[in-house]
């Protein structure tokens, strides 16, 4: 019953599978149209829209990182924003120290990805080898984030410098002295051959878009690979996965580190985008915001999470122009979305429209639920 393999289909095969919605040629055709539209955005939109779109894509990358561990591995972290901030700070500190010597931010970007991954490796090893699970992991990560935030907020004292970077407490990272360089945007390349990506420009937007697409495709490949199936096995029943010979702790740790690295990448891009990083991201609200994006989208699908993040981010900024009622409206939207579709509004929307299309075509009247979305009741 497989579709006949075509060259195009073979190209996409690694990204398709049971763990993701949207594996058909129709999906990929639409996907391509959207990507082309997004690439063309700087030519049709205003500068503000391009800058804001960069911001949203960065948020979407952060949301994808949580989707990987929560949706596929069953680990909810209430401290995902902490990895994002660690990445942001690591990028900023390294970039300010090396920009004059190197003339690029290559090492800083690597630091922004590696630092949170290393941190996740340490905390994750402690957690998973103590067999911590469920809400306990969530709270432990929240506590970790709050502790880091407590530390960063009290670094207002001028003695908190790391080379050319002054941690700056709640006012955010800044140069240690007047002679030290400002926090740079992303500069890639070697020696003289460098390209600068200013966070306010179209080039930065294209860079972020490229990275976003790469992360999306890479994650689709990961979750549809055999490792992805192991992840889902661990999510559904850790004991059974263990009896099949998998070391659940290692699988969880691996996914956790990968997720932290992606969150760190998003944090790096965020710092470079606004050339600014501040400790507010360690707070309860910032951490819950990521959970909200993923939950409203539907934690078990990557595409749904991206769409939800984009829509919610856009809504929050639009609501801010409404004045006093902005947060009230956001509350109603959240509660409404969760009531309408507890497993994720955008997954439900996708499934609903899919069913409608099937009916219009007169096939699949009794289409089975898509495996990846099906809720397995204990």
């Amino acid at each position, binding site marked *: *019953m497989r*579709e006949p393999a075509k060259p195009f289909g073979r190209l996409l095969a690694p990204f398709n599978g049971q763990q993701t*919605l*949207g*594996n*058909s040629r129709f*999906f990929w055709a*639409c*996907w391509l*149209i*959207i990507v082309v*539209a997004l690439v063309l*955005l700087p030519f*049709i*939109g205003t*500068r503000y*829209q391009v*800058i*804001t779109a960069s*911001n949203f894509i960065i948020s979407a990358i952060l949301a994808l990182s949580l989707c990987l561990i929560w949706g596929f591995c069953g680990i909810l972290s209430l401290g995902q924003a902490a990895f994002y901030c660690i990445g942001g700070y690591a990028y900023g500190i390294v970039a300010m120290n090396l920009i004059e010597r190197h003339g690029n931010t290559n090492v800083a970007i690597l630091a922004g990805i590696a630092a949170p991954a290393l941190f996740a490796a340490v905390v994750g090893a402690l957690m998973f080898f103590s067999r911590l699970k469920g809400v306990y992991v969530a709270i432990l990560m929240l506590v970790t984030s709050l502790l880091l935030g407590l530390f960063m*907020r*009290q670094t*207002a004292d*001028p003695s908190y410098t790391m080379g050319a970077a002054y941690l700056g*407490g*709640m*006012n*955010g990272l800044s140069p240690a002295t*007047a002679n030290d360089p400002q926090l740079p945007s992303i500069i890639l390349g070697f020696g003289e051959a460098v390209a600068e990506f200013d966070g*306010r420009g179209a080039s930065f937007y294209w860079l972020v878009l490229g990275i976003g697409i790469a992360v999306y495709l890479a994650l689709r490949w990961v979750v549809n690979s055999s490792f992805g199936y192991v992840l889902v096995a661990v999510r559904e029943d850790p004991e059974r996965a263990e009896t099949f010979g998998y070391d659940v702790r290692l699988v969880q740790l691996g996914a956790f580190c990968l997720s932290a690295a992606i969150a760190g990448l998003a944090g790096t891009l965020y710092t470079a985008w*606004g050339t*600014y990083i*501040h400790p*507010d991201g360690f707070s309860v609200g*910032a951490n819950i915001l990521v959970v909200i994006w993923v939950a409203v989208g539907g934690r078990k*699908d990557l*595409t749904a999470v*991206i*769409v939800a993040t*984009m*829509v919610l981010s856009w809504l*929050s*900024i639009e609501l*801010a*122009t*409404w*004045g006093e009622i*902005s947060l*009230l409206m956001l509350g109603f939207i959240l509660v409404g979305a969760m009531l309408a579709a507890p497993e994720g509004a955008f997954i439900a*929307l*996708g499934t*609903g*429209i*899919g*069913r*409608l*299309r*099937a009916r219009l*075509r007169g096939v*699949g009247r009794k289409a089975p639920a898509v495996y990846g979305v099906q809720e397995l009741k204990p």
Partner: protein
Amino acid sequence: MITSLYRLKCAGAALACALGFVGALTATPAAAAKSDIVLCTIDDLSGDFSLMSTPKTYGYKLAVKEINDAGGIKVDGAVKKIKLVSYDGQSDVKRYQELAQRCVFNDEADVVMAGYTGAEREAARKEVVRNKVIYWHNNQGEGGIADKYSFFSGPTPEQQVLPALKAMIKEMGPRMTFIGADYNFCRAIGQWVRVAAGLYGGKIEMEEYFPFGVSQWQSTIDKIKRVKPDFQVHCLVGAEHAQFYPQAQAAGLVTPMWSNVTISDGYEHKRFAPPSLANMYVPPGYIEDVPGEASKAFATKIRAMFPDVVYVNEHAAFGYVAVKAMAEAWKKAGTTAPDAVIKALESDVSLPDAPGGPWTLRGSQHHAAMPTYLFKVDDKHQLQLITELGVNEPTFLTDVGVDMTKKAPGRQFLPSDNPKWQSYFKAP
């Protein structure tokens, strides 16, 4: 076949949403050719800080209404009105960064006024000034920011900490304790308190900083009681820190207190149950209780326009002052081009009828000279004027060797940067 077709449909739906999103994003109308002067403001209208900051928008609205009712301002060969674009920062630092971009790129603001806390200020300010747009911060601050595009209408420690502590030391004696929230503003205030102690013969017996969220104060109260200071200096911020006051009252700690973060922003004397703030001394640049015709007239105008206002605080006054000062500068420059307007602002724009008393922006400082007042909160939470602290000039940036009219270093200076004050910061 059924399964794959089915999946295809689901995918299509998710994509349709994404397409819709792109459509929505690009459909937002671009700003039309500007026939108005655009004033863009970001304040906390919802969230934690809304009680303090909402009155700031009252100040903006009143000033804009007065200027527009008087016919507007003649710039670039046409008489233009001021268009006020007001956003809700939701007490969220990242939101300030995003909305500042919206002000600069979408609304093409001629001036952006944003932020209450230092973190909000820096998030918005960095974004505004790196795009070469004029930025104002309009409540008290720690001062010392030397940036070409940044201006500050509120009082700084030079007008609050130094003269007020001089009066306190003279009145009560030299021994003081300092407790404050552990963040930039209170750390800076801590430095200024050291300077005041050094300049006027005070002695700091205890200096401690606390993270936000600390709400049990018994051990600190014990420590202060053991020190038996002549008076206490406070920089306690937020609802949890404010629980210090009833706890101190119950524990019998009645030493006079001085604080520059209480009353002038959050009108705590109206919100707390008396007598928890009794014996508190505060140095506002403006609050409703400030004496003088201009003060009374301003409060009356605000109340006429916004009858619900509980107390007219410094936010309302300095928001109003900043807009008026910009109007003067636009008039003087005859254009809205930033460089010309900055030059006009730097020629010491002055507002003799400002709500708190005569206010003059010092061009070499980007901060203003203004009078401040020392009030005492009594047992019934009435404010008693103890003394007028007079008009104090800002000179700190000159002291550290900066002249804003010549070259702006684009960074913040703290008292420890002043070579003459080094001895005050040596560890005891």
